């Protein structure tokens, strides 16, 4: 079964196709570009490109897998609404995968471009405003803490409590000095194959699809009007 994989939770915007077989997830083609301000422009052409490269029409897709964040809201919504609208037209299920979970999975499981870790792993992506989205995973890929959004100093403290030995993600790279953890390279953004692997069991089982609700973790910025204010001073 060929599935479309989308993630727009970080400055990287990713579209990929993966083949889900009875016992494996085979990456077919991936387009990933880093531009935090252009998710809306980049994603749809990338989807068209991966379909064209494999030579299939959209109707041949069996499911859509989408990274639901956490991530900066505006870009994150681009991936989710693309997945939801395509799923609706094609009448195929959409599956939600935590974007930090995908990074945690990639860091703790042997994959095409990663070897497993021995101890807990911190995953941190950039949440802007000098904060990171983060979670901690055990060596089997199970989530121990998170996802949450905090300033790097708080994350450093919590990671120490969990006995974290290594960090991945572009948030961890950006605040490496505060976190004080060795960085594992090559895992800045959620890899498409990891998203597909985390949804593979549900896809094979034909499980009902998910509503693609973003992991916002923050309330909208809005100041409530405090009753009537004099317009004049």
């Amino acid at each position, binding site marked *: 079964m060929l599935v479309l994989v989308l993630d727009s939770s970080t400055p990287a915007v990713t579209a990929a196709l993966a083949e889900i077989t009875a016992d494996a997830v085979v990456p077919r083609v991936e387009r990933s570009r880093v531009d935090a301000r252009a998710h809306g422009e980049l994603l749809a052409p990338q989807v068209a490109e991966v379909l064209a490269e494999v030579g299939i029409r959209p109707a041949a897709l069996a499911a859509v897998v989408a990274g639901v964040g956490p991530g900066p809201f505006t870009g994150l919504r681009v991936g989710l609404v693309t997945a*939801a609208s*395509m799923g609706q037209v094609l009448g195929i299920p959409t599956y939600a995968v935590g974007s930090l979970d995908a990074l945690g999975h990639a860091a703790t499981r042997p994959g095409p471009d990663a070897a497993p870790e021995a101890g807990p792993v911190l995953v941190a992506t950039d949440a802007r405003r000098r904060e990171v989205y983060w979670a901690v995973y055990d060596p089997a890929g199970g989530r121990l803490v998170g996802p949450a959004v905090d300033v790097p100093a708080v994350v450093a403290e919590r990671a120490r409590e969990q006995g974290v030995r290594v960090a991945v993600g572009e948030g961890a790279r950006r605040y490496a000095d505060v976190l004080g953890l060795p960085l594992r390279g090559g895992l800045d953004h959620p890899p498409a194959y990891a998203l597909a692997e985390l949804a593979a069991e549900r896809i094979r089982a034909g499980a009902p699809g998910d509503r693609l609700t973003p992991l916002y973790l923050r309330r909208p910025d809005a100041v409530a009007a405090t009753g009537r204010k004099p317009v004049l001073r």
Partner: protein
Amino acid sequence: MADEPLVLGIETSCDETGVGVVRGHTLLADALASSVAEHARFGGVVPEVASRAHLEAIVPTMQRALDEAGVTLADVDAIAVTAGPGLAGALLVGVAAAKGYALAAEKPVYGVNHLAAHVAVDTLEHGPLPEPAIALLVSGGHSSLLLVDDLATSVTPLGATIDDAAGEAFDKVARLLGLPFPGGPPIDREARGGSPDAIAFPRGLTAPRDMAEHRFDFSFSGLKTAVARWVEARERAGEPVPVPDVAASFQEAVCDVLTSKAIDACRTHGVETLVLGGGVAANSRLRALAEERAARAGIRVRTPRPKLCTDNGAMVAALGSHLVAAGVAPSRLDLPADSAMPLTTVSV
């Protein structure tokens, strides 16, 4: 199909998630989900709240529109979407959705201008638009006078507000009078029980010296301040505020300026058709005054029914249908949402 294209339209530029379906000039469906109630306690639209609501509403609203029209996406000739102007994050949800629908259904997508769509929606009510026409578009987000030489390709802005949008002034005055948000409907209601001549509120940019530079522009900030000053003076004096009279006099000041400048624009450009659009065009006094003054000037007013004046998907579909019929090329898949899209851009 060229004459009667079946087009689906998506609108998410502010707080309404709209999906409309149009065949030629015939409205088949107009599904709408509004987040207006979520903004009420803030006294204005909160962009992030609107964007979140669009994401939740888009798929169910699309489904309702398709069901109502009795069509599937495989049947449509094109998908049109508001690409600007509007709230950046809100626009982006609609544009990305339109691309997803277009990609999956293998249909062309047209990124269109929200204001041109406000003009195009009238074709669903009154058929093809006589060109040239003047359009007066007034809402919480816009107050514009446009010269429409060709709805598919040539729209020229003649004037716009230099400060607040007309609808914004309605919202602010409503809050001042203790009326709910959005302020347009309650002020319209209160005004019916009051006198439009009770209080002489200022008419912005109508003095001869302003007319030289701002003949077709609007200003509602001074009016809003004058209303506030008047109400606060009353309150300081311990006197009751005659809400119906304030509402009627304020509304009259807004409608007087809007309609006199619109008629002036028609006369100046030798145009015989005036189209009204935008949420404020649902105001009963604006409609009546425009009719009255246009009739005296030998100008025909075309005003869509109130539900089509406010933001909706049908207006986007109507413009899309017009563009397809006119042979305009579709947009590329990398079309951006442009919060500041120029009014001269009908489609991208």
